[in-house]
């Protein structure tokens, strides 16, 4: 019985090998004659934009091979400053230690802001008492050794129910940014909250709990508007809801931040990388809303293109 079965083994294995080998043939020709490989790594926040740009870019330039990794902002900079990648995505500006490392390896680079990422503060759709929080109230809730345990601790008219907190984990750029602008120091936060690196876990947690409060990337709120209610934020100029417009024109403050790509200038002198970066800052902008982010005012992109011109010239 088994010997009959094993007879099929060889053809099946050969088929698997053939499938692998099928990958070896590289197809397609190219009209611009651009070719080569562009290695990109860095923040998972910037990833969806870069992925979209890479996808469209490769439709036009079929011989250019773009690869995108998600080592995180810090992990990406480690590879970038070792000269292993051409472009690095970052959800925060480069730190001094990272700059020094790049200098030590003779890596020069330019910084290009590519989009806004808003942080939305959310509660469950069932929550009927909250509309707005001030930055001071947010700090009261989230500061280290916070005294807030019940909603009534924030405003006496709110219910005397336990407040259940959800936020991204400490490795996340969103956590770093939120704690920096709200608590005054990156990483300083109370620690008795439900933490997850996966924002979808936070969405489910907040959506199913009437007395929950959480914060995470704006894109995750946009995709789950039916389950969540977004809280408007008063940064001193009245309550502002996060919307595409308020994030783009900067009135949703302080919880929106620019995200960047860093480009190695030596790589930028290669025609395929130059073309990719120009594509990113022109046609690429139209792709940004499709993946849940908000484009910057157009002056940022013209400035970015000028930086590219200066290097290439």
């Amino acid at each position, binding site marked *: 019985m*088994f*010997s009959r*079965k*094993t007879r099929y*083994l060889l053809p*099946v*294995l050969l088929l*698997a*090998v053939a*499938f*692998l080998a*099928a*990958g*070896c043939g*590289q197809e397609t020709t190219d009209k611009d004659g651009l070719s080569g*490989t562009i*290695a990109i*790594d860095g923040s*998972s926040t910037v*990833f*969806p934009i*870069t*992925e*979209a740009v*890479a*996808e469209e870019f*490769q439709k036009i330039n079929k011989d250019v*091979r*773009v*690869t*995108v*990794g*998600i*080592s995180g902002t810090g992990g990406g900079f480690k*590879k970038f400053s070792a000269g*292993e990648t051409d472009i690095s995505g970052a959800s925060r500006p480069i730190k001094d230690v990272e700059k020094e490392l790049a200098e030590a390896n003779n890596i020069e680079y330019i910084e290009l802001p590519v989009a806004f990422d808003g942080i939305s503060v959310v509660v469950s759709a069932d929550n009927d008492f909250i509309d707005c929080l001030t930055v001071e109230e947010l700090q009261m809730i989230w500061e280290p050794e916070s005294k807030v345990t019940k909603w009534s601790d924030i405003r006496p008219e709110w219910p005397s129910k336990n407040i259940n907190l959800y936020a991204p984990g400490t490795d996340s750029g969103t956590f770093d940014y939120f704690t920096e602008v709200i608590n005054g120091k990156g990483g300083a936060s109370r620690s008795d909250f439900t933490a997850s*690196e*996966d*924002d*979808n876990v936070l969405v489910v947690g907040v959506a199913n709990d009437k007395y929950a409060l959480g914060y995470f*990337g704006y*894109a*995750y709120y*946009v*995709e*789950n508007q039916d389950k969540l209610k977004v809280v408007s934020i008063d940064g001193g100029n009245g309550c502002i809801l996060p919307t595409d417009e308020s994030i783009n024109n900067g009135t949703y403050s302080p919880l929106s931040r620019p995200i960047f790509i860093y480009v190695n200038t030596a790589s930028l002198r290669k025609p395929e990388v130059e073309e990719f970066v120009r594509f990113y800052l022109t046609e690429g902008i139209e*792709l940004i809303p*499709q*993946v*849940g982010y908000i484009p910057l005012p157009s002056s940022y992109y013209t400035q970015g293109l000028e930086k590219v011109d200066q290097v290439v010239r």
Partner: protein
Amino acid sequence: MHAKKMQQRKQKNHLFKNLSFFMTLITITVLFLLLYDVFKDGIGWLNWNFLTSYPSRFPEQAGIKSALVGSLWMISLTMPIAIPIGVMTAIYLEEYSPENRLTTFIRVNIANLAGVPSIVFGILGLTIFVRTLGLGRSVLAGSLTMALLILPIIIVASQEAIRSVPNSLRDASYALGATRWQTIRYTVLPASLPSILTGIILATSRAIGETAPLIMIGALTYIAFLPSGPLDSFTVLPIQIFNWTSRPNADFHGLAAAGIIVLLAVLLFLNTTAILLRNKYQRRLND
């Protein structure tokens, strides 16, 4: 008195049987719940287009071609590296090595290696294969790292298998005038092969499902071409699945479930191959 004791013993016997059955039921229920959940979300996304497309920002157009081929590349490089080294190490340790402190030391350390978190192997792979040996973020670097990761599993399983071969078989072989190599080749290995293959099955499953060490060495997430050689960059199924589950758009979660089904299918195919081989050798031994 006697009858009562008899009844008690029978009751205990019965109780233990039911308890074991109940525990098995728990395991099976968990497995089926997981499978049900994955199939419910993923089956609608599973089609030919999904298998033959590259990743995309549009869920309808996205596929796992590069991840599937990357996983097959990695496994087909990892196993030929890990199996001979693992099995031969086990043969040396069990059949040749003298019983001394050094051997015991090596054995204990190999067993400990099996419990080292996979990310540590990733750091090792990044330092040695990617940077020092200059292999870059290639399939080969990934496969070598994965081979290191599963070596302890293969060695420990093979050692157990070889140790379980009764000494009477070896003695019989020597009595017929066989050399040590002939004894290993014609007696020990055939008798232990089924258990060695079981170890290899477990190791393969581990290698194909691992994500962390590959992210560490810089396997990629978005890649729209297939590796054309062992030095090309690559991605694998678990990385692609991980990436899709963390997207805000729920359609990508469906894609992730479909990716899991494909991963399970690949795993099932590889395991079936090994199980068929194992059964073949088991029969031969019993005949």
